């Protein structure tokens, strides 16, 4: 399987920067997520995680540094978190860091993701 | 809608209606390059009724007048990065056999007097005199004479083939709201 590297774009739509590495299990999604076809964009990311879990079976370190995501992106983010939670349940090693600027609303949103998925997420304020 | 605690009675419906009666595009807010680009493109799309000449005219007039708003508005806002941006209004409308293009912005009274004088001169001239006036002003501008650079308005009048409808409404002792409206006929475009 291959790494995923997507360079963020801030034009009519906002594409987040994505870096998924097979060798290290390090994954990051950062920037802004507001896409023309949200599900289509996230499908290969979900497929990558699925394949990594099934074949590599290594640890996964996820860094989310999203300064903005719209509601349809949030659905896909929950799909990712659900997948990570299931992997963890089956004994996989999963670390998730979520970076946020110091607004209550964003903190709330992370807390809701935790509640929604049951996954432990480290909340890290951005400097 | 719930009665507001502000001093203005405002109905978005009336506003939309007022705007949308014959209005193709209307924008009020900070004017910068990207807004000019996107509104310019938008104007090209909405006036695309097969009359390329009218469309080109509107676009030329838009570029001249929007630039004036952009450069000379006295009402400005500060961007997050600290840049000052002029605020203004751009409206394009469609009425039967013509389009209208209207710009509006707050100006300092002292700045606008020469502009109004210029508009009055422009409106008093026939097409040939207007062309002569443009040549004369261009020569003066090339010689670096102050207050002579405003060929834009002459160009607008020549392109539109109609007078400049101007309106000045005081908003304070020093400032007024200045707007220019031009009609562009759909037919008779040479």
């Amino acid at each position: 399987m291959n790494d995923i590297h997507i360079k963020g774009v801030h034009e009519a739509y906002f594409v987040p920067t994505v870096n998924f590495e097979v060798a290290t299990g390090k994954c990051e999604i950062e920037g802004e997520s507001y896409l023309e076809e949200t599900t289509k964009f996230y499908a290969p990311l979900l497929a990558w995680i699925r394949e990594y879990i099934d074949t590599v079976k290594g640890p996964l370190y996820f860094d989310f540094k999203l300064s903005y995501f719209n509601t349809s992106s949030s659905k896909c983010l929950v799909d990712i978190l659900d997948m990570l939670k299931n992997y963890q349940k089956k004994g996989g090693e999963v670390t998730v860091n979520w970076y946020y600027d110091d607004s209550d609303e964003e903190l709330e949103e992370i807390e809701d993701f935790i509640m929604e998925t049951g996954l432990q997420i480290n909340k890290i304020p951005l400097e | 809608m719930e009665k507001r605690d502000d001093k203005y009675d405002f109905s978005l419906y009336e506003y939309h209606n007022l705007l949308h009666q014959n209005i193709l595009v209307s924008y009020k807010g900070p004017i910068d390059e990207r807004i000019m680009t996107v509104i310019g493109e938008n104007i090209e799309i909405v006036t695309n009724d097969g009359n390329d000449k009218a469309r080109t005219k509107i676009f030329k007039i838009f570029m001249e007048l929007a630039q004036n708003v952009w450069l000379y508005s006295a009402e400005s806002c500060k961007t997050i990065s600290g840049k000052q941006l002029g605020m203004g209004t751009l409206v394009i409308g469609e009425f039967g056999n013509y389009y209208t293009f209207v710009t509006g912005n707050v100006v300092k009274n002292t700045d606008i007097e020469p502009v109004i004088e210029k508009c009055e001169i422009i409106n008093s001239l026939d097409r040939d005199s207007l062309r002569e006036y443009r040549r004369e002003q261009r020569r003066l501008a090339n010689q670096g004479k102050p207050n002579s650079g405003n060929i834009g308005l002459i160009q607008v009048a020549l392109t539109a083939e109609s007078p400049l409808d101007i309106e000045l409404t005081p908003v304070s002792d020093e400032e007024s709201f200045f707007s220019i409206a031009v009609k562009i006929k759909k037919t008779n475009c040479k």
Partner: protein
Amino acid sequence: MESAKETKHRTTDNIAISYTGVFDNEILSVLAKEIEGTLSSDDKVNKKVFKIFIELAQNISLYSLERDVTSGGDGMGVGTMIIRNFDTYYEFSTGNKTTKENIIPVMEKCDNINSMSREKLREYRRLQRNMPAGQKGGGNIGLIQVALTASNPIEYALVKCEDGNYFYIVSVRINKD
């Protein structure tokens, strides 16, 4: 707005940014950038207005009855967006044409959202987020997000137009504090 004279009312109505026309991707992107970068010097407030704008403007593109079909397909919705600046808050409003049948469920949804506490609203968002896309009742997180971001109720109004259709207005306040 045929003449120069009629344009002046725009200075006296607290409008910070307004737009009427086609809600296509390019204009939405530029308006979003204006909001993000120029609305106020408080980037937190700008971001809130920006988030609300993205959710509500998208509804106009998709659902406005009035459409511009020059770009082909179903075309893009036409509507109005206004941000007004008051002493202690911004007011963000959108308006577009619609039919009664289409809009009644949306208004019921607003009532429902307005009746909920913040905690309930968050619970509701979690619930909606887990509904599969395309399922009836799902895909409507936008309004919940608007209420949570604004921390204020969603006001709405429906006005009958001369052509028998309706004009639907949504309005929320974003406190400056």
